[in-house]
């Protein structure tokens, strides 16, 4: 894994541990060597003393093969060899150790136990002889293990403390990164505003700077795309308006000629569709999350918004002989007036479009019992089967292939509801067919 934390820890903790191990080895040597020398001195002194006693008391002293009155807790053996290494007295298990070479000290194993052997020169019956004494190393081992135990404990605690400190420092040093990430995570999916780099550590500032530059380019790109789409849609509006008026004029003149009237009515319908889809493209663009600024939300009343669009609805309903009714109570909320009007337009248009001629559509709004406001659009059309209800809010989904909808209306409704943090649900009226769209604003 490529992690700054791991890399830092590797380069901090690794050397700390190696250094501690070295320090422990050195401490061990420093503690153990003098102890070893002291033990050896004692053993050599014991060899010297035994030599003196043998000279004074004779070889009988060594008959048992044991060194007399030696240190408590240790087993020891003794032997006397002549200059050629022949055993004169004492334990046969002891190897001959010439005093002529080396320190006169060596390690060996005797009767299955490690021992340290020291020897001393001795004049015996005019011959040169060597007396050796072998002593078990139990006390030495105890001392050594005491040293090792202390060192392990000390160095262990030390190492843990240092590793902990390194861990903490690395974590602390990396905290600005974590904070940066948290700030990025907390952003809305379309928030392209530059990051505030005033609080950034010097090391992160270039990264944040580069990131902000990238954000800026992305935002400029998104804006150019939005503007292009909006421009195209806006450019279409004037010719569409002109075409509509010309067609209306022509239709009024040819009302008495059924063939012409029919053809003109179809042209007008097609023109209305073009107009509607152009408007929907603009609504979609307005509902783009990256164009949405929470700061633009102002107090609005849904009842007023519906009333502002009523003229248009009434004409559309009259054309299909639909009984369009309203139950408007004050429904205050924080919202974007233009988007909410798009939402109302599309929801009502959807109901009028999918309700058969002679049907009934009711638009209601008001304060919700649990706080917040609601908007409800109810029709007595065919309704939407429960298993298709989740699909109708997707773009370009049309349940009825014969209809002239663009498949964008309800997607616009959903986008705008989402931007306002509102809950959008689709059900059916109690005891009859039809669809009920309900939006709960917080």
């Amino acid at each position, binding site marked *: 894994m490529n992690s700054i934390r791991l890399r830092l820890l590797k380069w901090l903790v690794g050397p700390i541990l190696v250094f501690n191990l070295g320090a422990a080895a050195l401490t061990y040597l420093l503690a153990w060597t003098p102890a070893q020398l002291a033990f050896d001195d004692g053993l050599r002194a014991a060899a010297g003393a035994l030599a003196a006693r043998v000279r004074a008391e004779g070889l009988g002293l060594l008959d048992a093969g044991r060194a007399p009155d030696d240190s408590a807790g240790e087993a020891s053996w003794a032997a006397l060899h002549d200059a050629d290494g022949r055993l004169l007295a004492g334990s046969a298990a002891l190897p001959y150790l010439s005093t002529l070479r080396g320190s006169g000290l060596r390690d060996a194993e005797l009767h299955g136990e490690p021992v340290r052997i020291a020897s001393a020169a001795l004049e015996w019956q005019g011959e040169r002889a060597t007396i050796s004494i072998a002593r078990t190393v139990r006390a030495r081992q105890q001392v050594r293990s005491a040293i090792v135990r202390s060192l392990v404990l000390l160095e262990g605690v030390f190492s843990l403390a240092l590793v902990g400190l390194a861990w903490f420092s690395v974590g602390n040093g990396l905290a600005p990164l974590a904070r940066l990430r948290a700030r990025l995570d907390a952003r809305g999916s379309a928030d392209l505003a530059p990051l505030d780099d005033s609080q950034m550590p010097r090391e992160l500032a270039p990264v944040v700077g580069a990131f902000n530059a990238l954000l800026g380019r992305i935002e400029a790109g998104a804006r150019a795309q939005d503007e292009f789409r909006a421009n195209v849609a806006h450019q279409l509006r004037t010719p569409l308006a002109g075409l509509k008026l010309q067609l209306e*004029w022509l239709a009024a003149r040819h009302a008495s000629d059924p063939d012409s009237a029919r053809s003109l009515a179809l042209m007008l319908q097609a023109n209305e569709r073009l107009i509607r889809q152009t408007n929907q493209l603009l609504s979609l663009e307005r509902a783009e999350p990256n164009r949405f600024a929470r700061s633009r939300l102002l107090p609005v009343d849904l009842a007023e918004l519906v009333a502002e669009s009523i003229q248009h609805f009434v004409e559309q309903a009259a054309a299909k002989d639909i009984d369009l009714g*309203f139950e408007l109570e004050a429904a205050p909320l924080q919202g974007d007036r233009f988007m909410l009007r798009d939402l109302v337009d599309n929801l009502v248009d959807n109901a009028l479009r999918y309700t058969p001629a002679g049907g009934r559509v009711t638009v209601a709004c008001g304060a919700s019992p649990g706080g917040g406001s609601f908007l409800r659009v109810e029709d007595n059309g065919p309704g939407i089967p429960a298993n298709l209800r989740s699909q109708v809010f997707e773009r370009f989904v049309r349940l009825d292939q014969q209809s002239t909808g663009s498949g964008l209306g309800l997607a616009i409704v959903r986008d705008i509801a989402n931007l306002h943090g509102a809950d959008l649900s689709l059900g059916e009226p109690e005891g009859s067919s039809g669809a009920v769209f309900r939006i709960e604003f917080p």
Partner: protein
Amino acid sequence: MHILLVEDDAVLADGLARTLQAQGMRVEVARDGLQADTLLQRAPPLVAVLDIGLPGIDGFEVVRRLRARGDATPVLLLTARDAVEDRVRGLETGADDYLVKPFATPELVARIRALARRNAPKSTILALGNIVLDSGARRARVGERPLELSVREWAVLEYLLQHAGRVVSKQQIVDAIAPWGEDLTLNAVEVYVSRLRLKLDGAGVSLRTIRGFGYLLEAGA
């Protein structure tokens, strides 16, 4: 009714001019902002209908100059851009109303009429279909038949005629005809309207009820 129409798109200008003429308006057409500015000074219309995106000087600038001269001619702005800024700027500049293209023709006509009424010398006669309401002489008739109306019925019909072609809410009617906090309920409005409906039989108008909201009075049976 003299209307100045300023629109650079030839197809739309032609369609608008013919539509408004069919409504009995006298329409003068200008193609750019400077021409509009000149015409506004030379022969002030009853209402000016101004596109925002004009060659030369734009619609905002035309309105700004108009208001700078202290001219109160009502202005209806037409815009292809419905951006928030445009709307706000439009009304802050001194325009009286705006419509986003493409618009519903009856709505355009209704709005122009509303602005014209504001500007016209108080005409005492309102007419729609076969109805003629003369508030000066306090006489109303349907065709040749005199119309007997109570004071309230008169007020409601007058309000509906003033807003012909536009949906009006019951509350708007209450506010308009009982302005001094007189006790007038929405139900009472319903009663007056249903009486009017009977009396206006054969008047060549349709008085439609918008369930739960209000009414729409239009020409045509």
